[in-house]
């Protein structure tokens, strides 16, 4: 999948985040997006997902986009399973929650989970949504090494069927094969 960005300009108040930025993001499975804090990684992802206004042109060849936010954004009023099933169906939701080791937390309220568990529930939701492009913003934040590796494996497996953009501060030396890296 290629995402074409042409003359993109984005300003926040008085601050210019992007000015006439043009690029083509070639995604063949996984694209890692890296850059200093505040350089506009999340803003660019939100513009790609159609969540932010901008001037210029962004051409995304699909409208089926899934987005895992930096914040967990789980609905606090319903169970973990219902949160995930809200974007897919019960069976798919159960499958991804099990993959991510949350099989005992189906009926738990999101606020009762640890930060790492909530992160995984949020990832399960993003993966269970039937999207062609999955954007993950800092998916490994707050996870220990073992869980991070588990997530990497799941994402690698999933990237065989659809494309991923992963915004991350982590360094992945050889964890992702055939990855592209975009430095902002």
């Amino acid at each position: 999948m290629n995402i074409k960005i042409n003359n993109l300009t984005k300003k926040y108040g008085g601050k210019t985040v992007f000015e006439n930025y043009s690029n083509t993001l070639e995604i063949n499975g996984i694209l890692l997006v890296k850059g200093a804090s505040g350089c506009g990684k999340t803003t660019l992802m939100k513009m790609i997902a159609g969540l932010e206004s901008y001037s210029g042109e962004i051409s995304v060849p699909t409208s089926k986009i899934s987005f895992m936010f930096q914040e967990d954004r789980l609905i606090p009023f319903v169970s973990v399973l219902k949160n995930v099933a809200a974007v897919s169906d019960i069976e798919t939701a159960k499958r991804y929650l099990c993959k991510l080791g949350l099989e005992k937390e189906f009926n738990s309220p999101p606020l009762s989970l640890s930060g790492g568990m909530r992160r995984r529930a949020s990832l399960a939701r993003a993966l269970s949504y039937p999207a062609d492009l999955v954007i993950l913003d800092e998916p490994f934040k707050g996870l220990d090494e073992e869980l991070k590796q588990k997530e990497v494996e799941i994402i690698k497996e999933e990237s065989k069927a659809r494309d991923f953009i992963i915004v991350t501060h982590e360094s992945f030396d050889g964890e992702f094969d055939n990855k592209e890296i975009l430095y902002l």
Partner: protein
Amino acid sequence: MQSKLPSLTKKILKVTLALAFWLGLWLILSKAVGIELLIPPPKSVILTLKQMLVQKEFYETCLRSFLRITCGYALGTAAGTAIGILISFSSVLKSIFKPFLTAVKTTPVVSFIILALVWIERDSVPVFITILMVMPIVASGIITGIESADNYLLEMASVYKFSFGKKLKYIYLPSAVPSFISGCETAIGLGWKAGVAAEVICMSRGTVGKALKDSQVYMETAELFAWTAIIIIISLILEKLLAKLFDIIFKKALQKGGYFIEHKNK
């Protein structure tokens, strides 16, 4: 139980002390004034109350007022809920109904009672007034709750292309529940007081308001005090009773719907 007992004793002591203080003050005032017609002593009022409590008519009067005002309350809550939801999602309806709700909230209740006396039959006025008083409070509760829905969740819902029904189910309604319940609870006392005021002004037959008015007309001050005490007691019971009822109904409904919502106002 053991750890609760001292705090319960403390509470009882505090209430007894407050009650003794006000009864004492009342007694001193009535003695100072010296005219029973102006301020009857507590003993006369308690005796009148005792006499009232053994009469069948007293219970019929209370029940009649209770049923009418509760009916107005139920209708007002239903109307307030519908208007609150409609206003929250339609800017056109908001511009139409917001001034109406503000006008209802700020206009003295007596103006509406007099107007209602012109428009509708006397016995229906208390119901109409209760609806009018309850509706804006409940609607405001719903509007506040829906407006306070988390923007982060709404952005998430937009990514995952939630339908309006799904947004309502997962985000808006759960967000509105606490302030809706709070609005309903506030409206109980207010609706009851406004309903009785309407009964007084329109002399609605066989009601608490009419009894109150009669005791004023016949200068039965002890009875006037006794009826006032009854109004306060019924108001308190209603508030506690309905608050408890809401607690049970919503707790069950939320549990059945699989929601985790802190619905009790603390």
